[in-house]
């Protein structure tokens, strides 16, 4: 039983990080109809910022917000420079553009920083844990779960209670009509990217706090997971992205925890198999977007 509780905490912690990442993809997709594969590189940028802040001697509590800020800025610049010119192009064009942005950034990191993994200095506290009886929860996990919770609540508040948030929800549903209401397209899209940058930044800090290093290709796997989570949840649906993120986290952890050793090598395939099964049962995802199939922008 204790092991089960422990694994469930593990699943919530991992699922939370996936949820943040998937939300970042979903919020941009819901408005622009584009999966931003360079989302992972925003995490990498966060990681390098943490690394440089550490080298400059900033405490982690200062470095983390700075790194998230840099991710937001990078996301907004990315939109302005790379995505605005192709905004009205086909989905394929935008997808390829985002791949290109990802590859260009990876190459820049390799050439300007290092091909090698760079160590990120973290407080020792992050590698410790709190014990409740025989249960031990890593400080990292506690932080990860509580930060995910705070971010989800804050984002929900922003989307429900502010005019800009409402405008973003409206734009996700019907961009043209939102513009008819006088909502500036540039503003909403920049806002969506800023939020996705913030989410990538927070996820990046949590990710790096776990791995203690940053490398040029760091963003690839998380963005892939986030993509799976976003599809699983229902592409373009924000609630779905969160649900998909947690579902993926639970699937991965429980499979790792309870599959017999000799089947473990097939774990990844089984996990993806389960995702496909879920999608067969619910083709539009766990929580479909309100406007499945409607044209974007």
């Amino acid at each position, binding site marked *: 039983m204790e*092991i089960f509780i*422990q694994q469930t905490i*593990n699943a919530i*912690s991992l699922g939370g990080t996936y949820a943040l990442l998937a939300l970042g993809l979903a919020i941009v997709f819901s408005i622009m109809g584009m999966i931003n594969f360079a989302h992972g590189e925003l995490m990498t940028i966060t990681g390098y910022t943490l690394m440089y802040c550490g080298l400059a001697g900033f405490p982690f509590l200062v470095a983390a917000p700075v790194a998230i800020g840099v991710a937001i800025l990078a996301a907004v610049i990315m939109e302005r420079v790379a995505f605005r010119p192709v905004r009205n192009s086909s989905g394929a064009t935008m997808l390829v553009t985002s791949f290109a942005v990802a590859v260009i950034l990876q190459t820049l990191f390799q050439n300007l920083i290092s*091909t090698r993994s760079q*160590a990120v200095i973290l407080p020792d506290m992050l*590698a410790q844990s709190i014990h409740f009886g025989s249960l031990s929860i890593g*400080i990292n996990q506690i932080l990860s779960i509580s930060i995910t919770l705070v971010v989800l609540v804050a984002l929900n508040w922003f989307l429900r209670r502010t005019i800009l948030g409402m405008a973003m929800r409206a734009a996700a549903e019907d961009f043209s009509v939102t513009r008819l209401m006088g909502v500036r397209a540039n503003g909403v899209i920049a806002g969506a990217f800023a939020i996705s940058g913030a989410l990538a930044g927070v996820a990046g800090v949590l*990710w790096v706090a*776990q791995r203690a290093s940053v490398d040029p290709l760091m963003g690839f796997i998380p963005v892939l997971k986030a993509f799976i989570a976003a599809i699983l949840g229902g592409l373009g649906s924000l609630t779905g992205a969160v649900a998909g993120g947690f579902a993926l986290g639970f699937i991965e952890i429980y499979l790792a925890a309870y599959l017999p050793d000799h089947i473990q090598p097939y774990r990844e395939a089984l996990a993806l198999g389960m995702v496909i099964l879920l999608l067969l049962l619910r083709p539009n995802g766990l929580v479909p977007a309100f406007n499945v199939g409607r044209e974007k922008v």
Partner: protein
Amino acid sequence: MLRKLTITACLTAAFALSQVPATVSAQELVIGTATGQTGGLAPYDGPAMQGFQIAVDEINAAGGIGGKYKIKLISKDTRSDAAQTSIAAQELIDAGISVLVTPSDADPSFAAAALATDAKIPAFSPAASSPTLPLMGGDYMFANFPGDNVQATVSAEWAHKQGLKNAYILYSPDTQYTTLPLYFSDVFKKLGGNVAGEGTYTIGQQDFSAEVTKIKSMNPPVDVVMTAAYEPDFPAFIRQLRAAGVTAQVIGSDGIDSPTTFSLGQAAEGLVFSTAGHATPGSALEGFNKKFAAKYGKETDTIFSAIGYDLMKVIEAGVMAAGSTEPQAIRDAVADLENIKGVTSEITYKGTTGMPVRQVTLIRVKEGERELVGQPSPTADLVPAPRMQ
């Protein structure tokens, strides 16, 4: 149809003939390198080729190999991609190289090995350590690193001597190298130890909480954890393992011979891993490290640069022994080399299938620094046969 083919063949031949003499002169050894200068293998292939270059420069400055054959390098980046590796290798072979250098990992090297074998050109991977590489890669494929099975034997024997009894191994089926712990498991069991569990992970996995929870819940408790995970997986794993309060000895392998490992702080303290050499004062490796610093203006931060240097020394010895730059002659000479003095170790190919006999070094992380545990030779009977997949 036949005529068309003949014309194509003639054109190809004419093209090939017009190309080859232009790039190759009799007094030149042309080496093609198809390595991952960008992408996932860059942390290994980058430094390896830096070290390789130092040896090339030295040899050329002294008038070439044996004062006779100047070395000409043609370098291509494979972007750490297997398909790109075979394209690059084919281009190099077409350009008339005598020796091919493949990436530092067995999997993309297989792609190039088949082409090298067809063209009868010797191929070398600087740092691939999977003993299956030369076996499956054919007679023309050579490795340049202590084999995974040898490293694992050294680690298991060390663990056994420390009185460790209950092991857990964590491996990834994704590549040959990351299955090294399976060799450890074999040897450890032969030595009378128990292997309590064999966990797997995916390369690039970030969250090891499920595996860590399993290790922690083992009864009786696990006292040694062995993995060949490398960055970024390894740092994540060991931090989470320590955070969960598991204090078992952790043993790693050469993939974590990297600066990150030494900057993990408390989490990595006491970690032991196998690698290819250690710069004891006055050693050849220390000398190489000085050369490296002089050329590149910074200290080398990995053993792979010296491994690259040693690879060129092996090729040099092969050409010297062959007395020719003819690929087949070089291949045959290399297969017969004995006790070549590299900066990391003495290197012998004679009597092997292409996986060199080399020293294995065990390093412990102590207060963020490198501490030499020993450079033991494995007990020959214990070394497991390469695990063919």
